[in-house]
Every structure is written in C-alpha cells, then in structure tokens.
C-alpha cells in the first residue's frame, strides 16, 4: 500500500510529459508546411526548379520576392480590395442575421421552425451549384463586376449560418429579459438594440472572426462575379501568379504569407471572444 501512494503522482507526471511531447510533435507537424512556404517564398525560381528538395532552407535569401509581390504584382491593391469586400460583407451579414436571429429566438409564430429549417437548408447547398444562377442574376441586375454585387452575395450566402448561430445563442438569453421591458413599454427595436445586442457582443465577435476569415479566403464568388483587375481581391491575385506556361511558386508563397497576415491579426485581436463565444449556448440548443 505504501508504494501505491506514489503511483498516481508518477503516472500523472508521465502523462503530462507524454502530453507535451505529443502536442509539440503535432504542432511541429502542423507548422511544417508553413515553414516550407516561408522557405519557398525566399528562394529564386531557378533554385526551386533546380532541386526537388523543397524542405531545404534557401541558399540566398530573396527578400525582394516580397517587395515584388507587393508592388509589381499588385498585392497592395488586391489586399485593399479584399478589405473593401470583406469588412462591409461581415458587418452586413452580422447586422441582418442578428435581426433574423432575434426574430427566430424570441417571436412565437407558427412558421418559426420552418423558417429556421429554411436557413439551415440554405447552408447545405454546395455553392458551386449556384454559380450559374448567381452569374445570370447578377448579370441581369447589372451587379456583375461591381463591388456591391460581391458584397450582397456574400451577405446572402453567409446569412444561413449566421442566423442559425445567433438564434441558438439568443435562445440562451432568459426570455424574461425580453418580456420585462415589453411590459414597461419598450419598443421591439429598443429591446433588440439596448438589451439583446449588448448581451450578444461575445458571440457576435466570435462569429465576426469566423466570417472575416471565410470571406477573406473566398475565391469562388470573386471569380464568378469580378472581371476587372481593379476590383480583384487577394485570392484572385494569388491565382494570377499561375500562368499559361509557368507558375511562380516563390511569388505565390510570398503572396500567400502576406494574404494570411490580416485574418491572423483579426484572430489574435478577437481570440479572447473566440472560444467563449463559440461555446456559449453549446449546452442548450
């Protein structure tokens, strides 16, 4: 019995040790492709094509790849365009879906469930199936090749998930918080604006981060809807580095790293909301 007293402690230390070893390994494995991307972004094209060992560090550091991508390839304009598409899309999607989420969470009407199912069903349709209808519609409405056109479609397509997510969160807010002000004569807008919105900040922030990353990384809708170089976002700009004949791996890698900075920054900025916001309401559907 004396020996067993130390047992659990020793086992705990061993488990902790194993945990750290394994998690370090997994993290290293995950970082490996990023490391290779960094190496590739600093190599010359001749070095890349001359050797199949992509995991070796560059012989000469070609920092000018980054300046070339930023200036000559026009990454600076692409990044700005992406911001001009992403920020209004995220704000718009959050605004509209918080309203629909509010209605679905607090109003009791007969088709409440049916409307919710409609939103969820929208999430299940693969976007590729909608490419042609979206193209035809935007062409007919003269929204093709305009920034508002892309923004409107992003808002529409993100609406399903955002509504579902916010509705589920709002259901965790006690109904009395809606009922009490109603009795006191507050308008529905005041309830939404002054009570529900402040309570939803953390989940709005979490959702905002998710949406920001998704819309930032979108290639499909920009590809279908945008034709002019002057409106192109970063994802199309990256694709442009693959030519008819030659693909510039080093430029693409440098551009991808630049493109990843903004979503990363947004995530770091809002990460304290992220976990809490995503799990709030997880135990109650």
């Amino acid at each position, binding site marked *: 019995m004396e020996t067993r007293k130390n047992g659990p402690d020793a086992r705990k230390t061993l488990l902790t040790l194993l945990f750290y070893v394994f998690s370090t390994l997994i993290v290293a494995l995950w970082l490996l492709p990023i490391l290779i991307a960094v190496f590739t972004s600093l190599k010359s094209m001749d070095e890349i094509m*001359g050797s199949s060992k992509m995991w070796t560090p560059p012989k000469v550091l070609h920092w000018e790849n980054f300046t070339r991508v930023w200036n000559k390839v026009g990454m600076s304009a692409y990044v700005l365009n992406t911001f001009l598409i992403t920020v*209004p899309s995220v704000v718009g999607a959050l605004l509209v879906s918080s309203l629909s989420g509010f209605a679905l969470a607090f109003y009791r009407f007969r088709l409440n469930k049916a409307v919710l199912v409609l939103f969820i069903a929208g999430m299940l349709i693969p976007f590729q199936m909608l490419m042609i209808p979206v193209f035809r519609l935007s*062409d007919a409405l003269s929204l*093709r090749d305009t920034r508002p056109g892309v923004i409107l479609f992003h808002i529409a397509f993100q609406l399903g998930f955002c509504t579902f997510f916010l509705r589920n969160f709002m259901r965790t807010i006690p109904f009395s918080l809606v009922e009490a002000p109603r009795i006191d004569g507050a308008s529905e807008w005041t309830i939404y604006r002054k009570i529900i919105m402040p309570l939803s900040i953390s989940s709005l922030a979490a959702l905002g981060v998710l949406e920001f990353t998704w819309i930032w990384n979108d290639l499909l809708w920009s590809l279908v809807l945008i034709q*002019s170089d002057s409106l192109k976002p970063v994802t*199309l700009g990256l*694709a442009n580095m693959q*030519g008819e004949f*030659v*693909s510039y791996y080093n430029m693409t890698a440098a551009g991808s790293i630049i493109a990843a900075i903004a979503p990363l920054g947004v995530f770091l900025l809002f990460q304290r909301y992220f976990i809490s916001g995503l799990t709030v309401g997880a135990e109650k559907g």
Partner: protein
Amino acid sequence: MRKASLSLLALFGIAASIGAQPLVVQSYMSDEAPKNAFAALVAEFQKQNPAIKVTVNTVAHEQFKTQLVNYLTAKDAPDVLTWFAGFRMQQYAMKGLLEPLPESTFPGGSFVKEFPAAFKPAASYNSKIYFMPQSWYWWAVYYNKDVFAQYKLSVPKTWDEFLSVCETLKQNGVAPVSIGAKDTWTAGGWFDYMNVAVNGGTAHQKLTGGTVSYTDPSVLKTFGYIADLAKKGYILENAASYSWQEAVTPLVEGTAGMYLMGQFIMDSVPADKKASIDFFSFPKVGRPDYGVDTPTDGFMIPAKAKNKAAAKKFLAFIATKKAQDMMNVTLGRLSANMTGAIPNAEAERGLAMVKGAAFAAQFYDRDAPEEMAAKGMNAIVDILQAPDSYKDILTALDKERVRIYADLK
C-alpha cells in the same frame, strides 16, 4: 453603414461612366514575362490610338478557361479575349458567340497576306474568320544532354532506338520518361504524337473529329505502345502526383531523361541548366513521315462586345509584324505572321522541324471537343497507372465519344 454603402454605390457609378471609347481586353497571360510583354504591346497601341482607352484584365490561365463562357454570354462582354485556335474556338463560333473578322480587318487586306494559309482552317468556321493568331510553339521530346552523354546515348530516331534508350536509362536508375500527369493535358501530347506516328495525320484528324472509334484496331495499337511504356516501367514513378512544372525538376536534376513537352518548358528550366536541355523530334514508328503539335494562341471578339470597331483595330494592330515581334522575340516563341523574326537558334531548329512535318495538329484539347479531350486525357493517365487494362479503359472512353459527339449535333 447605409450612408457608407450608398456613397460606395455612387462612387462606382462615377467610375463606370468616365472614359471615352473604352476597349476591355480580357487576357489569360498571367505569368510575368508574357504579361509584361503584352503590357508593352498595349502601350504601343495606346500611343498610336490615343482616342481609345484600353483596359487589360488579367485572369489566371486555368480560371480564364472556366470563365470564358461567362465572358462570352455576359451583357457587358469584354471587347477582346485571348484564346486558342482550332475546335476550341470554333465551338463558340458555331453557337454565334463570336464576331467574324472580315478579310479587310487584316492589315494586308486578307488573312493569307499576313499568315500562312495553313493557319486559316484553325482560325475560321464555316468559311468565316473568327480568330487572329499571334504566336505558336512546337512540342518535342526534351532531354537532358548531360544524362545522354553520361550513358553514351544518342538521340533516338526510331521507336526501337527510343525503347533501347529507355532501357539503358532505367538500368542506371534514371526515370526514362518524365511526365507531370497531375495536369492531365501533359498526356494529350503523348496521345497526339503517338497516334500520328502510328496512324498518320489524316487518321488522327478523323479520331479527334469523332468519326473513328477509340476501340478501332489502329487506335488500340497507338494506346498499346503507351501502355507498353508504362508496363516496362519507363514512366516517372508517381507521375500523377506531379504538376507539369514539378516534373521538370527531375529532368533538370538528371533523375529523369526525357520529357515530351511544349517549347515553353524552357521557361522553367533554371538559367544555369538551359544549356543541358535540348529537344529532338518524336521518334518514328514505322511511317516515313511525321507530325507535330503546334498550338496557336491569339485573340477573338465576342459577338456581344460593346466596342467592336476598336476591337478590330486592336486585332489588326496585333497582326502586324512589328506587334508580333514585340511579343514573340521577347518570349522566344514563333510569330504567326509569316514575316515575323525568328527569335533564336532554338526557334530556327523548331521551325525547321515543323516545316518538315507532313501534319500539324493544334493539340488534343484544342482539336477535339473540350469534354472529349478531358475524358481522353484522363483515360491516358489511367492507362499509365493500369496499363494492363488499357482495352477496358478505351471501351469506356468510346462510350463517352458516342455521347459527346451526339450532344454536339
């Protein structure tokens, strides 16, 4: 938010209305060298025509292909599009989506004054011209001279010599034939060259035209040769996991010996290795004559283009010797214009090879309907992986042929 989006909308309205005589060129020349050369060309045109305001939109090459139908059918279609000659263009002319180019469009007054008459069929449909050729290049077997020298190999002229070169390379641990089959079009070159070498140009035209079965004994023979290469282990291992460009590296490193590819392969060979890489004509397989693939790139005008007069002016400019030289001498390709300068000694040899050929094809995916070529090229990649079942693969492919050509009518 509402205010911001309203002013944003207003901003776009203004941006769209500025500029007289706009000419929108939608280009797939997204790699740096062609993009820059094309920009210089456009600047020259702009200088000569100050009243026209040219906007060039560059789209990644592979994405351009998927978006072309959108460009052609949109209300505000671009005025000029880059594209390929052959069936790839003709299928859209057939549907009335392209603007015909009258002979007077051409600077010399007719197509044949500027371009070889042999280019005309691939540039026209139903005796109307729809396509302004700019440049073309050849396909050939590229090989590593250092590797050949090391194992004392000489350039193979016949299929038997080719096989013995392969065997020697394989014995020495060098992959005889490199191919980046992740891009299935790399297999299209093998299809064209092998079939023309086995059955000749006329038979090949019938096959890409859809009137010959893929299970015809002559076609089986062609694919038998390809299957044989795979069975003997002469194809680069895991070929299907490399893009065409990734498969260049083994050739440059000397771990592979040969690569059937277009002239543009030289663009991705590192500068210090360019001297080691050279090309030879595809070996002969029992026929005295030989064929070549000479894909031709150029421009066309959508039927829905807004500014057709300016677009034709631009195309006429592109057709001139000066404009073609500006582009092609820089890039080392051959001008479609007969009087165009030959950029270098390599191009001189390429041109000689093409002139000696009895038959010139565009390329499998330009001569045959896109879907047919896509299925066909997939089938070849499948055969490279499962050479024993090549007959079954071709039987399945022929079912597709019947369906695809029936759909066309």
